[in-house]
């Protein structure tokens, strides 16, 4: 009984993705399910939509830069929070986690108002700054979790043997926390790549990320080529999941230890 319910619910969970993949091959010129016939035509149409290809590349670049910065900042914060005991530590922890707790839309319009009042134009830099704020907490948590499992004695031993602090960290601790660092980077990348709520407020007039470009069609009828684009993004994501699963195990991402 429990088993039947479980598999039915999981079927429902995966249904929207399956439907997108299935519909992308429809031979009809409108979106319907079940799809009619089979064609790859819409993939060709989709790839010819230059503005969507540009947005995809733009999203990749933004997400990659965000991933690198969030991992570096998150790593620094994680080291301080895990390895030092000092007054204000708990408050700092709560402060750095708060972007996860606050509604993303609040952060989005907050940054928009702040930078426009300072006279900044909407630029990719501001967009990346916004993405870094909402992704760094994940990096802090994931790297911090890895770091908690590493005995500080190892690093101290390297120091006693004459290694400078930075070298001891880079050669002893860093290799040991690599799974957390990789997980943090990938998670920051995915979160940034997926984001609409920040990006929609900080979009530059010229460049728009892919999810925002898709979102902006919200009041128009669905077109098969848009479904083909979505199908390609799903396939891209599946490839990423496979990569994560091979490196650290997906369940590690959400704070549940892989068992």
């Amino acid at each position, binding site marked *: 009984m429990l088993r039947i319910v479980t598999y039915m619910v999981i079927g429902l*969970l995966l249904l929207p993705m399956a439907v997108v993949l299935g519909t992308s091959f429809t031979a009809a010129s409108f979106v319907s*399910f079940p799809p009619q016939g089979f064609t790859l035509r819409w993939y060709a149409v989709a790839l010819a939509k230059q503005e969507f290809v540009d947005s995809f590349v733009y999203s990749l670049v933004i997400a990659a830069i965000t991933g690198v910065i969030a991992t570096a900042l998150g790593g620094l914060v994680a080291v301080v929070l895990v390895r030092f005991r000092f007054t204000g530590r708990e408050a700092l922890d709560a402060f*750095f986690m708060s972007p996860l707790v606050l*509604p993303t839309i609040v952060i989005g319009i907050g940054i928009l108002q702040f930078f426009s009042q300072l006279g900044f134009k909407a630029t990719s830099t501001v967009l990346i700054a916004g993405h870094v704020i909402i992704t760094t907490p994940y990096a802090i948590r994931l790297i911090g979790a890895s770091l908690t499992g590493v005995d500080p004695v190892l690093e101290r031993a390297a120091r006693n043997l004459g290694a400078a602090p930075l070298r001891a960290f880079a050669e002893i601790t860093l290799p040991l926390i690599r799974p957390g660092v990789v997980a943090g980077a990938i998670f920051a990348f995915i979160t940034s790549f997926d984001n609409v709520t920040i990006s929609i407020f900080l979009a530059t007039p010229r460049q728009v990320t892919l999810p925002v470009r898709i979102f902006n069609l*919200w009041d128009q009828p*669905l077109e098969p080529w848009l479904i083909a684009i979505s199908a390609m993004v799903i396939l891209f994501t599946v490839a990423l999941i496979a990569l994560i699963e091979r490196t650290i195990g997906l369940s590690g991402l959400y704070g549940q230890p892989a068992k």
Partner: protein
Amino acid sequence: MTDEPNRRRRALVPWLLIAPVLVAFLIVFAAPVLLLLLTSLERINPSTFVVIERFTAYNYLKFLLDGFYLGILWRTIHIGLVVTAVCVVLGYPVALYLTRCGPRERAILMLLIISPLVVSIVIRNLGWLIILGRRGLLDALAGLLGFGGADLLRTETAVVIGLAHIFYPFMVLSIYGSLQNIDPAVMRAAANLGAGPWRAFSAVTLPLSMPGLIAGSLIVFALCVSSFVTPALLGGARVKVAAYLVWEQTLQLLDWGFASAIATILLIVTGIIMYAYKRVAERSWFAGGVFQ
């Protein structure tokens, strides 16, 4: 051993290390949110967009005294409650099954439950658009069963389905987290004392898993009431929610004061819920997710 100035210098090390990140967060995060609170007290002239009053509760009163806006706030809360209920009803049996199946099956099921989280929300919503809209899967099924047709797009039901799909994994992980912590000996004790499976569940398992259920409900509800993308895509202008108003006021009507006031109200509502979540999470052995 160490002399006083040395110790004081040591105490500075963590702050020096963290300073660049702290400054970045203060500028790009704390300052904007504080500014938002200030902006929410500004009243503008709606035709010239010029600020005509600096410190006034005008925007809050406008929101809280107008039946139209209160209706939207109520709808937002109502959607959050329904989504939470759906996630509990569909999440509990799955979480329970996860504790009873073998480790291999559990690993695969976990992967399947978590994997939708990494697929873009916009694209998961498009999937539901195809399923729930005209000429969609539901339409076809309804036709087969002789109900004529079905088109749920731009309805509250569509928004509830879309949101439940997105936040469901958080509920399962949360309930599973506290179910996992129940000592199997307690269950055996219940059985030895003559409790049937149903009695053992209602008298032992369910109460012991309450922290996870409550924490999961709080997190799902908080995420729901502040969500923007899914209500906009599946509900559109016909099912406006609070976050939709924030977006509309900011980018289309350019009344940033009013947008900030609505955002602040959202902030307060989710803040209270998250505080409750933290308390629940701290008091139990709940091995929580990333939100702690």
